[in-house]
């Protein structure tokens, strides 16, 4: 579960005023939901994600993710909190000198899983994203869509309760974007909460669901819409 209570984030810019990135944000995302977060540049989407990843702490208010109170989380506990979420980035952020298999296995190594478990789990998630035949490839040898599928496999490998996707379709061909979101929807159907930040309105309209719109650091709309894919 994700919950923000009266969250303000104020960036100091070195001058007298600074910037208000988020104002009095109240938000609750329940387990198992699939949520789109939309908004223009400067709306506060990146700040919201930084809060959820515990890259920053709020100036005031409280942030709860997967049972962790992020406002009070100590630095040395952050890695353990991050293991409870899976991150997907616009620029994939795969480790370039590790193969596809090793990139996915890396998160399991981090969580101190046994070699036996890794040998079973990695082929399983690579099969889910249909990349079993590319296991020995390096990220540089893959297309953008394939790299993003590796990133999804990596995010899902440790079976986290929450996956946060930051513009996951931003760097790939439009026709592949639907495939990526479909993959995230499949993961969501397995019970994992998915928060996807995007500015692609066509995708949001197509898939529908809960849409949270940010503007000037505030939630201006939190609604459900029906998607075009529902009948398919």
């Amino acid at each position, binding site marked *: 579960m994700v919950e923000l209570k009266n969250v303000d984030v104020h960036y100091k810019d070195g001058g007298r005023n600074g910037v208000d990135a988020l104002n009095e944000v109240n938000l609750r995302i329940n387990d198992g939901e699939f949520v789109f977060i939309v908004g223009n540049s400067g709306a506060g989407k990146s700040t919201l994600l930084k809060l959820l990843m515990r890259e920053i702490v709020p100036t005031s208010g409280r942030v709860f993710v997967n049972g962790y109170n992020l406002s009070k989380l100590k630095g*040395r506990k952050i*890695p*353990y*909190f*991050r293991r409870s979420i899976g991150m997907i980035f616009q620029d994939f952020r795969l*480790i370039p*000198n590790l193969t596809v298999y090793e990139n996915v296995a890396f*998160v399991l190594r981090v969580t101190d899983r046994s*070699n036996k478990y890794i040998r079973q789990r990695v082929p399983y998630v690579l099969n889910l994203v249909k990349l079993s035949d590319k296991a020995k490839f390096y990220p540089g040898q893959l297309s953008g869509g394939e790299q993003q599928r590796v990133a999804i496999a990596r995010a899902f490998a440790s079976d986290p309760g929450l996956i946060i996707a930051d513009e996951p379709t931003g760097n790939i061909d439009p026709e592949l974007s639907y495939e990526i979101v479909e993959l995230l929807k499949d993961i969501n159907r397995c019970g994992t909460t998915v928060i996807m930040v995007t500015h692609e309105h066509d995708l949001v309209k197509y898939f529908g669901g809960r849409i949270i719109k940010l503007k000037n650091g505030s939630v201006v709309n939190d609604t459900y819409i029906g998607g075009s894919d529902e009948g398919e």
Partner: protein
Amino acid sequence: MKGSNFSYLVKQGVVSVWHNRMMSFASFCIMMVSLLLIGLSVLIAMDINIVIGSAEEKNEVLVYVDYKTDQTTLNHIEDVIRSNDNVSNVVFYSADEAWADKQEEMSRYSSEYSKLFEYLDENPMPHTFKVTIADLTRINTTAEQFRSIEGIESVTAPYDYATFLVSMRTTLGLIGGAVLIALIVVCVVIVYNATRTSVFSRRKEISIMKYVGATNSFIKIPFFIEGMFIGVLAGAASWGLTKLAYEAVVSFFSEDITLWQVLGLANLIPFESVTWIVLGLNCLAGALLGALGTVFSMGKHLKV
């Protein structure tokens, strides 16, 4: 941490040397040259110290005693001289030996001198104690102590020679120390910058590791191993270069036998006698520089 994970991290460290071979090679070269300069400087400084030390050992304070002095008094004087804490060696040179040597020496110049000796009723030479001083900086005090012994006629000491050697040792010691410290500081800064550049080029990789929940120690271990591995290789390579350079320096000086003898270069440290120490210290210094340099360079990038 599980053993399998630890061995994975060690393996990753070694494999990373190859994956980042350009930066690894740059770090390797910088560390190798740094260790070569430091190693060679230390060896040369040690040699200079030994050369000055051997020159110092050739000092001789001459303590003269009247030739009529009886054996008991001579024994007493020798005991007092030997009991001085600044004396490293004492050789007794009797008046009779001195007189015989003098006559032989003079006769070599002209046979006429031997006739002159017949006119002398008694031995004009004194008994002499040839004393080697341990600490030249105290030669004045020690000579004064000898003068105060009862029965001593006079004392001569190589004060200028001693002063020159002492000031040379002090000056060279200061210069050598300053050069060595400067060299170490410069090398540490260069190596630190090289490792920082290497780590900077992989900052994205570090941030990805942080995002997926890796602890700082989990991220640091492969970098630590990698830095240590490169450092040990650089240490071993610099050992080979130090050997070649040092032997070249020694052979350059040994070609000129006169210079060799004047400087007492027979005492120069043979590389074979320190080869394992140099190898060990080079590898240890390389490992420390590489490992700590890399880990300290990571600090900023771990704050994600």
